[in-house]
């Protein structure tokens, strides 16, 4: 009997140690410096509040921490879109003025590998900037740092919340340098292909309502022929 208990204790301790090692692995996670920080192209910065209720619309399956917004918006409960959310927001220029609107589709990805510190999501932005044109950004994002540094600590906290400073590049592909792919649609962006990255800055998170203080930022590199006004 004592050997069985000893073996069981060993199994539980071994599994717990392994999971702790994966959780605290210092060699995985997101960068905090944008790969576009050294680009020679012109850059457009678009900021937005990542707090869903500060946006125009947010919808998901209705069963997650983040409640769909505004009231009576259709929820994505069907099996094929159950792990998808849609977020619509105003976008601000680097100077803090209204620049346009963006629609973000985000779905969990089957390429997620927790062992490698990869909690991957596929996302696409459909963006309209008045006076400039339209474009689409497609990217993969890694939410591992977000989960490890914000969501799990919030659930472990006695106050069911997290406060701190988080600043990470969320984009990790599909381009080789870990940047997103930008396709211009109309206006000044017509025919353009380029790169972008999405950054997330967070100061507060609640397990009851989700993000409390969180800002997102899209940085787009614009090749010379497509003149940006920002």
């Amino acid at each position: 009997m004592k050997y069985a208990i000893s073996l069981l204790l060993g199994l539980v301790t071994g599994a717990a140690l392994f999971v702790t090692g994966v959780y605290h692995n210092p060699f995985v996670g997101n960068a905090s410096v944008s790969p576009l920080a050294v680009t020679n192209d012109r850059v457009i910065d678009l900021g937005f509040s990542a707090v869903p209720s500060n946006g125009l619309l947010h919808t998901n399956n209705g069963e997650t921490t983040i409640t769909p917004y505004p009231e009576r918006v259709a929820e994505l409960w069907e099996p094929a879109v159950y792990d998808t959310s849609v977020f619509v927001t105003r976008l601000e220029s680097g100077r803090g003025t209204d620049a346009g609107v963006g629609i973000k589709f985000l779905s969990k990805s089957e390429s997620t590998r927790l062992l490698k510190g990869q909690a991957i999501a596929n996302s696409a932005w459909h963006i309209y900037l008045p006076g400039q044109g339209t474009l689409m950004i497609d990217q993969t994002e890694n939410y591992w740092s977000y989960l490890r540094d914000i969501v799990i600590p919030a659930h472990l906290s006695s106050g069911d919340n997290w406060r701190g400073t988080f600043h990470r590049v969320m984009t990790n592909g599909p381009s080789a340098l870990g940047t997103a792919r930008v396709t211009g649609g109309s206006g000044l962006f017509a025919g353009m292909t380029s790169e972008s990255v999405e950054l997330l800055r967070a100061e507060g998170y609640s397990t009851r309502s989700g993000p409390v203080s969180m800002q997102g930022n899209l940085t787009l590199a614009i090749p010379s022929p497509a003149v940006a006004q920002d």
Partner: protein
Amino acid sequence: MSRVIKTFFLGLVLGAIGAGTLMWKMPAVDLHRESSLVTVQPNGGNVEEFRINLPRDRIMVGLPDPNSSIPAALDWPGQVLLGDMQAELFKIRDRNDTVIGVGSRIASASEASGPFIEWALHFPARGTMYVKLEMTPSEDGVRNGLLMSGTREFAKLSGGLREEFVAAAPDDEESQGRIRLNAMLVGPLGESE
């Protein structure tokens, strides 16, 4: 070292290996997939029909007059920021009327940098398509468009999209009609997709 402690360390190693194997083998995400209802064409390309039933598949409508937007509580910026731009969000269905994705349609006829009508179609288990439509529809009301870019399953494909509004039957009081999207896609260098 006593046998009890040796057994504990054996369990420790087995526990760590077991946890690692589980994390490696068990998929953390397993997306639901519907079969793609694709018709193969003689040129090696394919045609796939997507449907949007109105009004039940409508998620959002943002109009120049914010008071007319859907849902009613939507705080849409409207004319002041976006001019005559209209933005719509829909659930996308396949030919069997099963929801397989979500899509956005944005349009503006008087945008200073050039008018546009565009779709972004997002299918979680397959990828995303970005399509630009012609401004002028054909005589029978069909609007043709070009695939600007695609991701994952659609990344290497080229082709177009036909948008058509099909009115509801006169005796159908619940429906406002249907948007039918026909994607006609072909792989690189005649590769069948």
